[in-house]
């Protein structure tokens, strides 16, 4: 209702333009310096208005395609906002804007601002810092992989959980029991799953060599497909392609808890010697790990999902924490090229720590320049 009244009033006001000037003289406007411009760094879907406000009153945002043409209401704003984004624009059309207010004397309007046209921009200026970070990360990986390729030895420390893999496979072989490898419950769109597959390959190679039986139950069908390829390839590379069986990699169901129910039931019935739970996990982590523990299996877990780490740490014999999971895939292959990328991660961490330290020192001297450099949008 208010809108309609205001719009009608506004149109009347435009029709009686001379009075407008009079109104402006008598009552000082609550805004000054209205400007309209293309919203920077967007895809061309909006025009931004900006003004300085005195006090806070509701205003109607008026728009027209010509300075003296007919203005229509496109939205409402509060003057204290100081800014308004008009998203109802057509790409490339030039518009003029004004703000209209109800006062005791009727409706008053600011002088028109513009013309402004929305255009599709080619760069998001707010993301310069992200661009730099991305570039540095790429450069570090490429540089260290190249160094590694040239034959320079790179040191990587031992990761306890990884050394335990051999031991765990050995135990299963001695006991003549199965190994379960659970690659998490997320799809291939999750990077942890990809890391998990490369660890699976290492484990499968070991089981191929020792003739231990392995089972990989899956929740995600794409992972199921990729895991089967991975295990098959591992058996081929170990020189035992004839021992690979399709039943080693199975599909259960797409539901998180139905999957957990099926896997725990398998654990209780088949009593595996070793459980690997490596990848992305959610609430089912403890259901799986606690049942496996009760069933007497050695358990090796690995995830970067911070929320599930406490449960794996308390119920598994070894847990790969966060970044260790990613390092693991590179570490296990012992391929120099992949070790290079671990080194790159370390250098990135060093750069971040130096940035933080510098920022903290700067803050002590009352300069927040580093903090401002790291603002993201």
């Amino acid at each position, binding site marked *: 209702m208010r809108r309609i009244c205001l719009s009608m009033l506004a149109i009347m006001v435009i029709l009686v333009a001379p009075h407008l000037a009079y109104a402006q003289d008598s009552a000082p406007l609550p805004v000054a310096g209205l400007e309209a411009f293309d919203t920077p760094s967007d895809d061309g879907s909006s025009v931004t208005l900006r003004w300085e406000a005195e006090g806070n009153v509701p205003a109607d945002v008026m728009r027209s395609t010509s300075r003296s043409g007919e203005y229509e209401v496109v939205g409402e704003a509060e003057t204290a906002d100081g800014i308004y984004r008009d998203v109802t624009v057509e790409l490339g059309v030039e518009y003029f804007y004004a703000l209209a207010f109800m006062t005791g004397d009727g409706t008053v309007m600011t002088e028109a601002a513009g013309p402004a046209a929305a255009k599709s921009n080619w760069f998001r200026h707010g993301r310069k810092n992200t661009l730099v970070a991305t570039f540095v990360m790429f450069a570090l990986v490429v540089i260290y992989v190249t160094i590694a390729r040239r034959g320079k030895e790179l040191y990587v420390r031992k990761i306890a959980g990884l050394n335990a893999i051999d031991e765990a496979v050995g135990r299963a072989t001695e006991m003549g029991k199965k190994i379960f490898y659970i690659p998490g419950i997320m799809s291939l769109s999750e990077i942890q799953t990809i890391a998990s597959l490369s660890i699976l390959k290492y484990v499968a190679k070991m089981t191929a060599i020792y003739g231990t039986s392995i089972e990989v139950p899956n929740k995600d069908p794409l992972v199921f*497909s990729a895991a089967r390829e991975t295990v098959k390839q591992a058996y081929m590379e170990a020189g035992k392609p004839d021992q690979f069986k399709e039943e080693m990699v199975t599909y259960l*169901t797409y539901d998180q808890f139905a999957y957990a129910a099926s896997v725990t039931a398998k654990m209780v019935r088949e009593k595996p010697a070793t459980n690997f739970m490596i990848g992305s996990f959610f609430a089912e982590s403890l259901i799986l790990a606690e049942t496996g523990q009760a069933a007497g299996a050695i358990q090796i877990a690995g995830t970067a999902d911070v*929320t599930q780490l406490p449960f794996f740490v308390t119920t598994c014999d070894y847990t790969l924490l966060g970044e260790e999971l990613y390092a693991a895939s590179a570490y296990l292959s012992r391929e120099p090229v992949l070790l290079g990328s671990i080194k790159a991660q*370390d250098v990135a961490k060093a750069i971040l720590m130096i940035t933080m330290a510098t920022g903290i020192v700067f803050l002590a001297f009352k300069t927040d320049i580093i903090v401002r450099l790291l603002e993201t949008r």
Partner: protein
Amino acid sequence: MQPLGLSIGVWVNALLTLCILSFLYKDNPFFRFAESLFAGMSLGYYIGIVTVQTLQPNLIRPLGETFFGNHNYLLLIPMALGIMLYFRYIPRISWLSRIALAVYIGYYVGVLMMQKIHGQVIPQTRDTIMPVTTGGIDALWNLVVIIGVFSVLVYFYFSVEHKGVVGKVSRVGIWFLMISFGASFGYTIMARISLLMGRFSFLVNNWIRPMFGS
């Protein structure tokens, strides 16, 4: 008096709940029945969900409405990629199935990388830059956070042997990790109990009490 359909629903609901809970005692035929039913029904459920919520609005309906308009024919590309997944069963062209995986993984890897750098690395780094000289006791607590972040990052250092200073700092990192794991565990117990409470209150308030008419 409740409508009959509703009370059958409550009975089925309650009995299935008990079947699953019986697993706590030990594996038994009731659990096995419920678990098998669950596996089957849940997969059937997702077949329905994927058909109605993904394929119908994103593929079937657009193609049905207009093939050339709106560039809908482009949807044949993801469809072809999806079908390629099945080529692995045909040895001569099985390598084509990798194309679908390559596209799928490639895209998400790119998306996630930007989210991690832009949404996690940079903001979390920025927020670790906190004043340690002003703000009274808060300055001290800020220092605790800073020490925690640094020592955990040092713990994750792979290319340096954890001996000497590095070893000591990374030990502090482990302590911080342990505090965090213990605290998160303790904090989470609450969530787990809530779930059990939801089930128990259903059994008591919606099943047993109505049975005795209270």
